[in-house]
């Protein structure tokens, strides 16, 4: 049976064509001159930008990205087990599949607890251990 991936491909193709189409129609209508000098400056509330905007940023963003990757890969492996569960409920060997679901969820819970205890889920992670905080 034709599964419709070609149809889905058309959606991706046409939605990608929307962007050049709209900007192209705009090119016919809009004035040709370009902003120069102070007009073309990045908008930082009217101040002249100090330095480049390509700066180092908070390490927390990397930690969130790493936690996401681990969880997302785990999720991708979880969907195939999830679709077999109904069949297992109807046909008897439910304990095996339930065990697998429990294993997957258990792994996610252990990972989540590990991050939680380590303090990786705190957005502002203290530099000092909690026990010494507030004494100095």
């Amino acid at each position, binding site marked *: 049976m034709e599964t*419709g991936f*070609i149809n889905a491909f058309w959606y991706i193709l046409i939605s990608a064509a929307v962007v050049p189409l709209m900007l192209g129609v705009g090119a016919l*209508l809009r*004035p040709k001159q370009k902003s120069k000098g102070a007009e073309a400056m*990045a908008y930082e509330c009217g101040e002249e930008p100090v330095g480049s905007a390509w700066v180092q940023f908070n390490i927390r963003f990397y930690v969130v990205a790493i936690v996401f990757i681990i969880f997302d890969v785990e999720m991708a492996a979880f969907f195939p087990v999830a679709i077999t569960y109904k069949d297992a409920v109807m046909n008897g060997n439910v304990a095996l599949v339930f065990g697998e679901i429990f294993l997957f969820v258990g792994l996610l819970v252990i990972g989540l607890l590990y991050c939680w205890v380590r303090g990786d889920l705190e957005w502002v992670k203290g530099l000092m251990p909690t026990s010494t905080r507030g004494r100095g």
Partner: protein
Amino acid sequence: MQPSAAFAHALNDSIGVLPLWSWAAVTAALVLFLLALPFAGFATFIERRVAAFFQDRLGPNRVGPEGILQFPADAVKMLAKEDFIPAGADRFLFNLAPLLVVVGALSAFAVLPLGRALIGADLNIGVVYVLAVTTLIPPGILLGSWASQNKWSLLGGLRAAAQIVSYEIAVALALVPPILVSGSLQVSTIVDAQGWAWGAENAANYHFWNLFYNPFTFVSAFVFFIAGLAETNRIPFDLPEAESELVSGFNTEFSGMRFGLYALGEFGDVFVMCAMFTALYLGGWQVPFVNLETFWIALPALVIALIHLTMFMAKTLSLVFIVMWLRWTLPRLRVDQLMGLCWKGLVPIALFNVVGTAIWMWVFHGQSLPQLLAKAFSG
């Protein structure tokens, strides 16, 4: 059941003439240009009117009757604006970013079940397809913000990336209970199973909306809706845009039609989120308590398709209205509260719902709460 529910097959069966792949292209263009783009434009207008009524003022009501021509006027204005790229920006990434956002939001329309015969592409991995293509949005936002060489943009883009990827986990986990219940990733199969109606045969084969399947799916639906709001950067989760702190966040340097494309991506994503909620939890195109496929009068296919479309749009647009309602009701969260809510609130609750639904299905042998109640009351 028909051999295939895809819209292209239905058109090919009734009109023919052209090869099937060209009907697929025609339907894709129809859905995108007659549903997705007008919805996004109309939603900006409705949002302003709704906002006005919540604030006891009139809102845009001058262009056309009740201001209904406001959004074409806005579109023309955006098209006529200068195509602005700030000095020092990375031009290639600046051009690429809106493309990723628009493709991410619009290509998800392929699997939205507008009706039994009105699905663009009835993929057997439909739910995963939506998750996969909407994942193009955070890199688009991040690249665009980084490329515009503006500190407000960079902060907004980083917040958007961290927020969207975190809430993606909660969304994916909240999708699992309906998948467990119907045993399929195909959106049409998931919707079909929710067509509960009066009559012994119907009651045995179908369960009611997944929202009411059991207490766990009920909670899971709310987890999905909250996480979906965060995925689409709507208030109370609009920290990436946060106009009181970041000017306009990730789209500060995007003006004219480029801003319009970001808005298109955002409203397209809101529609996809609400439509997936409808399909997975609110029975999609199904009319409550009536199953048109097992109805006692055989209705013509066109009538069924129209009823399905009306039901689906009514449910989805009500959800879109709730999204707008929340915007003018709730204050914005702080960034640490946002991350805490996701990882310490929604993700554990969603994991609990998955195990809870699995245990429910095991104990009650795959029967829903409405089915058990109906059985109990009928003796």
